[in-house]
């Protein structure tokens, strides 16, 4: 008999053993869900909003976004002050003296030069290399090194390869110093000259891929491959206790897809403003379990509410506001932001949901090539056809009856009211009558003779419901036949890249506070131009805006460009996204309702815990821009 108990005893011993070794930590001041685990914390490589958020908490760039300023002004970061020359091209940043990395090593202007050089190298490229190429000579440097590496590979094997690779690397360093106009004049002065005036340059300097990295750490984790001449980098230095950062927090623990623990850094220059001692970024993958985790108190802040029943939660939030209609109206008139309004109302669990407009647009791509992948003539090559299809979609019906989370129906690409000083064009109207006329003009009266339109989309997040609504509009208003095609996201992306589609779902979230972040994806040579839209006029307008030094005139030109884009309709904007946060506004403050959805985690503050400023943070009301 006791022999039979053996397997049981062994199993139990294993369980007890693992549990004894692997103890959970004490609860952090704030536990947040950040849409899954970070994909990378390698500053040069980051590109996801979720990753950027954590990088922004651990590191500090030249400047920081004032996320509570509707115009998104800039606050000093590692740069104490800065000036730009009259030509708008030469920028000088004065680095704060006596600041240190989290291991105590002094911080210098050269740290920025090293970091940006790394992003420019073809060996260790940043996804935002294109933005770094705005620096004079940067593009030439990347191209030069790419060619040299190709040459090196062609030369083939030899005994002296290691030496040659090292020589090429030394030459590369020299080339960088010679051609790239990015210089650390001394330890506290960083000077850069740009190709042309870039009004949003400061916004890029506040953008996380432009943050500095700790040089010795990165260098210890890379090596020169003698066979290819390339720098081979590993990214596993982003783990505690190795990681060295310069921001408000330091990373004390990172368990993959489990928990990331940030604690206040004693070396941060502005440590007095840090509102909490510790943040835990937990991972709850299941969308409905995320809500349960919040309701049971295990989580304080969910940055992306995606539960299946989120539309119902938003309806309840609205119902709650409606019960206090007169107070809400008064606060709105006063200019209070939506989070502040929820906080000033009596506590109610329905008010823990915060649907906020985002800096992203949901749209449909039209294939603009003359021929379809199967060789047939593509009717969508004709801009009139595309515009007709765009005008036949009832966007309001989609936001109000399909999405139901407070999305803003939109006939424009750049989200309305999200960029200071930019007046959006009127946009594509819902006008089935005009749409039919336009389609007839193009040679398809009543949809006769039109190909069967296939809508391609990926299989989650209710894209099928939207496609159904669009299908119904096109079939009933234009008389065409529409079929739906669902695929896995990776396969959809592959099809888009190969332009193997007729109509396909797409979306875009802006990176920096300028219309260009949306518009440039339709430039004929842009890598994200899935539509193969090719308009000389549109390209020329973007070019003209690039050469315009006067910011107001520049935005006017960009508006023309967007008008042009909407006239040609290579894409069909459907709505402006909302992002739904979940937190108790009476307990947690410091979350910005700004559409850019950049969150400065060091501003988070638990009200009533005696730590931090203990004062609710509200959106500033100086604004021309509606938050």
């Amino acid at each position, binding site marked *: 008999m006791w022999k039979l108990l053996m397997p*049981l005893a062994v*199993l139990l011993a*294993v369980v007890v053993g693992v549990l004894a070794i692997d103890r959970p930590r004490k609860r952090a001041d704030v536990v947040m869900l950040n849409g899954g685990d970070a994909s990378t914390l390698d500053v040069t490589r980051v590109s996801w909003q979720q990753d950027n958020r954590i990088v922004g908490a651990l590191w500090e760039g030249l400047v920081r976004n004032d996320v509570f300023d509707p115009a998104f002004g800039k606050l000093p970061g590692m740069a104490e002050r800065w000036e730009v020359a009259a030509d708008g091209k030469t920028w000088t940043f004065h680095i704060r003296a006596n600041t240190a990395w989290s291991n105590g090593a002094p911080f210098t202007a050269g740290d920025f030069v090293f970091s940006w050089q790394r992003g420019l190298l073809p060996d260790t490229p940043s996804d935002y*290399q294109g933005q770094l190429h705005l620096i004079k000579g940067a593009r030439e440097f990347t191209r030069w090194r790419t060619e040299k590496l190709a040459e090196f590979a062609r030369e083939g094997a030899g005994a002296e390869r290691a030496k040659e690779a090292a020589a090429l690397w030394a030459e590369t360093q020299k080339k960088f110093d010679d051609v790239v106009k990015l210089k650390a004049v001394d330890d506290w002065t960083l000077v850069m000259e740009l190709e042309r005036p870039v009004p949003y340059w400061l916004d890029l300097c506040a953008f996380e891929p432009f943050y500095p990295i700790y040089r010795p750490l990165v260098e210890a984790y890379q090596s020169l491959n003698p066979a290819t001449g390339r720098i081979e980098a590993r990214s596993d230095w982003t783990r505690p206790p190795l990681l060295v950062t310069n921001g408000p927090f330091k990373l004390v623990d990172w368990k993959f897809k489990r928990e990331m623990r940030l604690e206040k850094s004693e070396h941060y220059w502005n440590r007095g403003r840090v509102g909490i001692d510790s943040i835990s970024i937990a991972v709850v993958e299941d969308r409905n379990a995320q809500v349960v985790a919040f309701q049971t108190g295990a989580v304080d802040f969910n940055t992306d509410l995606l539960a299946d029943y989120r539309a119902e939660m938003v309806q309840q939030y609205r119902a709650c506001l409606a019960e206090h209609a007169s107070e809400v109206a008064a606060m709105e008139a006063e200019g209070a932001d939506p989070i502040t309004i929820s906080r000033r109302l009596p506590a109610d669990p329905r008010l823990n949901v915060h649907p906020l407009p985002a800096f992203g647009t949901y749209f449909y791509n039209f294939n603009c090539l003359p021929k379809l992948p199967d060789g047939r003539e593509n009717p969508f090559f004709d801009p009139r056809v595309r515009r007709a299809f765009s005008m036949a979609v009832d966007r309001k019906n989609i936001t109000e009856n399909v999405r139901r989370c407070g999305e803003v129906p939109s006939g424009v690409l750049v989200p309305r009211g999200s960029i200071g000083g930019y007046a959006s064009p009127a946009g594509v109207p819902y006008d089935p009558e005009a749409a039919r006329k336009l389609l007839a003009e193009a040679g398809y009266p009543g949809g006769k003779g039109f190909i069967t339109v296939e809508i391609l989309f990926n299989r989650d997040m209710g894209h099928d419901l939207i496609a159904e609504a669009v299908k119904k509009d096109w079939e009933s208003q234009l008389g065409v036949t529409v079929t739906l095609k669902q695929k896995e996201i990776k396969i959809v992306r592959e099809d888009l890249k190969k332009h193997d589609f007729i109509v396909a779902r797409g979306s875009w979230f802006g990176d920096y506070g300028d219309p260009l972040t949306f518009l440039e994806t339709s430039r004929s040579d842009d890598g994200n131009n899935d539509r193969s839209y090719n308009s000389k006029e549109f390209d020329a307008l973007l070019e003209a805006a690039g050469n315009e030094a006067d910011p107001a005139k520049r935005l006017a030109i960009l508006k023309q460009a967007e008008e042009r884009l909407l006239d040609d309709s290579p894409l069909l904007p459907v709505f402006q996204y909302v992002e739904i946060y979940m937190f108790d506004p009476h307990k947690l403050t410091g979350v910005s309702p700004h559409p850019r959805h950049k969150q400065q985690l060091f501003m988070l503050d638990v009200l009533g815990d005696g730590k931090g400023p203990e004062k609710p943070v509200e959106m500033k009301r100086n604004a021309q821009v509606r938050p």
Partner: protein
Amino acid sequence: MRVILRRLVQLPVILLVIYTLTLTLAWAVPGNPLERSERRPSAEVQAAMKARYKLDSFWGFYWSYLDNASGLKWARDGLSGKAAAEAEKAKRLGVAPPARRVFDLGPSLQYEDWRVNEVLMGSLPVSVTIGGAAMAIALVIGVAAGVVGAMKPNSAADFGTLLVALVGVSLPSFVTGTVLLLVFSVWLGWLPVAEWGTLRALILPSFTLSLPFAAYIARLTRMGMIEVLKSDYIRTARAKGVSERDVVLKHALKNAFLPVLSYLGPATAMAMTGSFVVERVFSVPGLGQHFVNAVLNKDLFMIIGVVLVFSTMLVLFNLAVDVLYRWVDPRIE
């Protein structure tokens, strides 16, 4: 002894075949693992990243992965002094040198900062804990239910346990898991949600995971017991006047347990490599999620890594069961 040795020698060969098959299949999956968001990096950046991960050619990847994962590269770097040079460099720069692993399973493509080894080392203990607890629960419930059923076949108790077993096998764990979570965590508030590392947090996921196994074990035990209880030696034991308790527990169970034991090998390997559904419902940071996510992300290194770990565990647990078998029943050769 010789059996154990033979199995252990076979293991690398089995793994090589599995690696080749897995890579061939995973390579054929459409999609680009380096495109992780709506934002597509420029063509130059993509080419550079492909070169970084040796994704340009199948055979280039095949041999380079084999070189790293088999320990050959580790040995070469150690002998040629490359490893020492790197450690020296890191020391000069004042940071800890990069970790060197004998069997280096490469980086994750989806989570660039992580080596597959680290991911597996982090999530395997979690899955082993849940799987271990689940198998323990399954054994207790399953064997007890099976014995009770077999004592009085076709009685109410027998039908009751059979019914429960049927429900356990048929109900998918996302249903049982969600219901248990709703009742015990949300309504009653007895057990935590989205927590890991305490005994309390272990209860619901391991119970949910145990149900299908328990049901299967119950049926195996019942069948075995009914068969054994009819045999001559049991009749002899009863005739000798051995108490019914001793007949069942000492004499019958030992033989009736053998089918259960052979089922335990693959079952434990399954349970201990995690369940995607249970992990998702209870937010358990286990291994099961990687099986699904790695394929969706086309994360080649991760796909191969989890498959190799699962294969190794399957071979080892089957070996362990064989050894146990001989020990429980010395008649088996």
